[in-house]
C-alpha cells in the first residue's frame, strides 16, 4: 500500500503475505459463519424462527447484532476515510448516526416490539386496510434495502481490488482488477443468499454478533495503538493530523467538506443547507430502516428490546468515538497523499493505518502485513454481515407483507410463507448481484444517504403517526409512504449527485434543478405533510377501537407475539 514508495521488491513480497493472510482470515470467517448458519438452520422450524430468530436472543446479544447490522463498511471505512481526508466533517456522520438511536429508543423500539410480529408493516397495517398499506410498506422496505445493498456490494467490489492491492493493469491469480471486482460482488451475493435462506434470522443474527465483536476488537486495538503513538495525548494527535493534512487548524474545524464557504453567495447558501439536510436525514433515518426495525422482534419482550437498544447505543457510540481516532490517526500517520494515491475517496485509510501501526508496533513489515490483513478481513466480514441483514429485511417484507397478506389475503400457511421468504431472498440476492455488477462503474456512494433519506421521509412519518395519532388512517399511511418515497427519490434524481456536476453519476447530462445533494430537508417534511393530508382528505375513518387495541398493546405489551 504505502510501500509503493519503498523498495518495489519488498513491497511485492509484503503485499503477497498480506494478501494470503487476508484471504486465509476471510476464509476462516466464512467457514465459521457458515458453520453457525447450518447449526442455526437445524433450529429454524417455525415462521417466528425464520423471521425473528425465535424471539430468543438476549438484550446484549441483540444489541451486538444491531451494532453488527448498523456499523457498515460505510461507517468503518467511509467515516475513517472522510476524517482522514476532510478532517472534522467526517465526525458529523458519527454524531448523526449515534444521536439517531434516541429516536429509536424513545419513540419506536418498545412500542414496535409489543405491537408487531415480523415486519415494520405489522405495525403500520395494524389498524388499517391490510392490502394498500402492506403493499406500500413492502415497496418502501425493498427500495430502502436495495439502495443500501447496492452501495455495500459495489463498495465491496471496489474494496477488494484495493485491499488485495490489485492495481489497474496488474493481475492477481490471473484476474485483473475488474474481474476481481465482479468475482467479489458475486461471492458476497452468494454468501448473503446462503446465510439468509439457510440460517434465517437466527443464523444472520449470530453472523452479526461475530462481526460486531471482530470489528470492535479491531477498532479498539488500532485506537489504542494510535493513542500510544501520541503518548495518549489527544491534542498532540489532533495537532499532528492538522499539520500532516497541510490544511492546518481548518482540518480540525467544520467546513472543509460540508457547508463549504465560497465567493459565490448562492453556492454557499446551498452548501450550508445541504449540511443541515444531511444532518436531519442522518438523525431521523435510523428509526425507519427496515433491517434495523426487524431486529427488535428477535427478543422476547419490550424490556429486552429496550436493553438491546441501550447496548447498541453503548457499542455504536464507542465505535464512532474510535473512528475519530482512526481518521485523525490515518491523517497523522499515513498522510493524505498516501491515502489518495490508493483511493481518492479515502476508503482505504483505515487499512492503510493498520499497516502503518503494525509496522510500528508489531515488528516491521511483517507486522504491518499482519495487521493490514486482519483489518481487511474484518472489513469484508463487515460487508457480508450488513448485506445479509438487508437481504433478510427485504425478503421478510416480500413474503410476510406482500405474498402472505396481499396476494394470499392472510391465508398462507407458515410453511408457505417461509418458503416464499427463502425464494425471495434468493431472488433479491440475484437481482442485487446483477444490479451491482452493472452499477460498479457508477458513483454509488450517495445510495446510503439516499436510503436514510427515504427511511426518514417515508417510513418514519408512517410509524410515528401509526403509534401516536388516533385519527391516522389507511390513506394517510399510504400517502405518507409514497409521498415521502417519491419526493426523496425524485429530488435525488434532480440533484447534482445524479447529473450536472463533475462527480455526478451522469456527469455529461444536465438536469440538476434541485440544488441539494441530500433531499431530507424537503422530503422529510413532505412525508409528514402527506401523511397528515392523506388522513384529512381520506374517506375511510380511523377505527377508535382498533387504536385502543394498538395503544394498550404497544404500551403494556399485552397480547405481544
Amino acid at each position, binding site marked *: 500500500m504505502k510501500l509503493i514508495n519503498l523498495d518495489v521488491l519488498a513491497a511485492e513480497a509484503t503485499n503477497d503475505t498480506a494478501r494470503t493472510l487476508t484471504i486465509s482470515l476471510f476464509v476462516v470467517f466464512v467457514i465459521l459463519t457458515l458453520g453457525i448458519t447450518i447449526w442455526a438452520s437445524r433450529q429454524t422450524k417455525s415462521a417466528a424462527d425464520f423471521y425473528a430468530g425465535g424471539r430468543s436472543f438476549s438484550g446484549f446479544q441483540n444489541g451486538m447484532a444491531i451494532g453488527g447490522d448498523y456499523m457498515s463498511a460505510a461507517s468503518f471505512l467511509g467515516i475513517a476515510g472522510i476524517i482522514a481526508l476532510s478532517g472534522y466533517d467526517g465526525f458529523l456522520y458519527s454524531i448523526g448516526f449515534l444521536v439517531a438511536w434516541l429516536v429509536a429508543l424513545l419513540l419506536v423500539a418498545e412500542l414496535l416490539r409489543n405491537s408487531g410480529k415480523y415486519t415494520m408493516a405489522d405495525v403500520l397495517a395494524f389498524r388499517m386496510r391490510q392490502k394498500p398499506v402492506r403493499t406500500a410498506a413492502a415497496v418502501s422496505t425493498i427500495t430502502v434495502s436495495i439502495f443500501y445493498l447496492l452501495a455495500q456490494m459495489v463498495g465491496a467490489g471496489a474494496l477488494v481490488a484495493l485491499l488485495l492491492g490489485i492495481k489497474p493493469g496488474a493481475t492477481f491469480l490471473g484476474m485483473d482488477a475488474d474481474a476481481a471486482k465482479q468475482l467479489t460482488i458475486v461471492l458476497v451475493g452468494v454468501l448473503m443468499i446462503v446465510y439468509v435462506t439457510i440460517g434465517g434470522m437466527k443464523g444472520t443474527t449470530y453472523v452479526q454478533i461475530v462481526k460486531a465483536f471482530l470489528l470492535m476488537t479491531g477498532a479498539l486495538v488500532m485506537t489504542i495503538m494510535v493513542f500510544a503513538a501520541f503518548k495518549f495525548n489527544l491534542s498532540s494527535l489532533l495537532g499532528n493530523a492538522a499539520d500532516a493534512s497541510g490544511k492546518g487548524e481548518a482540518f480540525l474545524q467544520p467546513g472543509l467538506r460540508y457547508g463549504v464557504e465560497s465567493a459565490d453567495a448562492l453556492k454557499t447558501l446551498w452548501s450550508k443547507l445541504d*449540511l443541515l439536510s444531511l444532518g436531519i436525514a442522518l438523525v431521523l433515518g435510523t428509526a425507519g430502516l427496515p433491517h434495523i426495525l426487524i431486529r427488535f422482534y428477535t427478543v422476547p419482550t419490550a424490556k429486552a428490546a429496550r436493553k438491546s437498544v441501550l447496548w447498541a447505543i453503548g457499542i455504536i457510540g464507542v465505535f464512532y468515538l474510535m473512528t475519530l481516532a482512526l481518521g485523525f490517526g490515518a491523517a497523522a500517520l499515513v498522510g493524505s497523499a498516501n491515502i489518495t494515491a490508493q483511493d481518492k475517496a479515502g476508503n482505504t485509510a483505515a487499512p492503510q493505518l493498520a499497516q502503518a501501526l503494525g509496522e510500528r508496533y508489531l515488528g516491521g513489515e511483517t507486522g504491518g502485513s499482519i495487521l493490514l490483513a486482519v483489518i481487511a478481513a474484518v472489513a469484508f466480514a463487515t460487508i457480508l454481515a450488513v448485506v445479509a441483514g438487508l437481504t433478510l429485511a427485504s425478503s421478510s417484507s416480500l413474503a410476510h407483507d406482500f405474498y402472505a397478506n396481499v396476494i394470499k389475503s392472510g391465508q398462507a400457511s407458515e410453511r408457505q410463507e417461509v418458503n416464499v421468504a427463502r425464494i425471495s431472498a434468493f431472488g433479491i440476492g440475484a437481482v442485487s448481484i446483477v444490479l451491482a455488477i452493472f452499477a460498479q462503474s457508477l458513483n454509488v456512494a450517495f445510495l446510503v444517504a439516499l436510503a436514510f433519506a427515504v427511511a426518514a421521509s417515508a417510513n418514519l412519518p408512517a410509524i410515528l403517526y401509526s403509534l401516536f395519532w388516533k385519527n391516522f388512517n389507511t390513506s394517510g399511511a399510504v400517502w405518507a409512504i409514497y409521498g415521502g418515497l417519491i419526493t426523496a427519490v425524485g429530488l435525488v434524481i434532480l440533484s447534482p449527485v445524479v447529473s450536472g456536476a463533475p462527480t455526478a453519476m451522469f456527469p455529461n447530462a444536465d438536469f440538476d434543478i434541485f440544488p441539494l445533494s441530500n433531499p431530507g430537508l424537503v422530503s422529510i417534511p413532505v412525508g409528514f405533510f402527506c401523511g397528515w393530508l392523506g388522513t384529512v382528505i381520506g374517506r375511510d375513518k380511523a377505527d377508535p*377501537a382498533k387504536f385502543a387495541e394498538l395503544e394498550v398493546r404497544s404500551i*403494556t405489551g399485552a397480547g405481544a407475539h
Partner: protein
Amino acid sequence: MSTDTPDNSRYVAVQATDEFAGLRKSLRNFIFPMTVAFFLWYALYVILCAYARDFMAIKVIGHVNVALIFGLLQFVTTFLIAWFYSRYANQRLDPIADRIRAELEGPEDAK
C-alpha cells in the same frame, strides 16, 4: 394480528381506565419533551457547524476546539438520556405496564 382478535372491547375498556391513562401520560410526558430536547440540542450543533465557524474554531485546550467538545458533548448527552430513560422506564413505567398486562391476559391465556 388485529384480525385474529375481532373482539377488542377489552382493550377499549382498559384504555378508558385511569390506571392506563396515567401510564400513557407518564410515558408521553417523558418521551415527547425528551425527544424535542435532544433534537433541538442536536439541531443547535448542526446549525453551529454550518453558521458559527468562528465560534466552533475557538481553541480550548491545545488543539482541542469548541467544535470537538460540542461533538463529544453530543455523545455524552446521548449516553445520559439513554441511561436516564432506562431508569425512568424501569421504575415508573414497567411495574404499571406489567400490572395492566397481567390483568388483561389473565391466568388462563398466559402464553
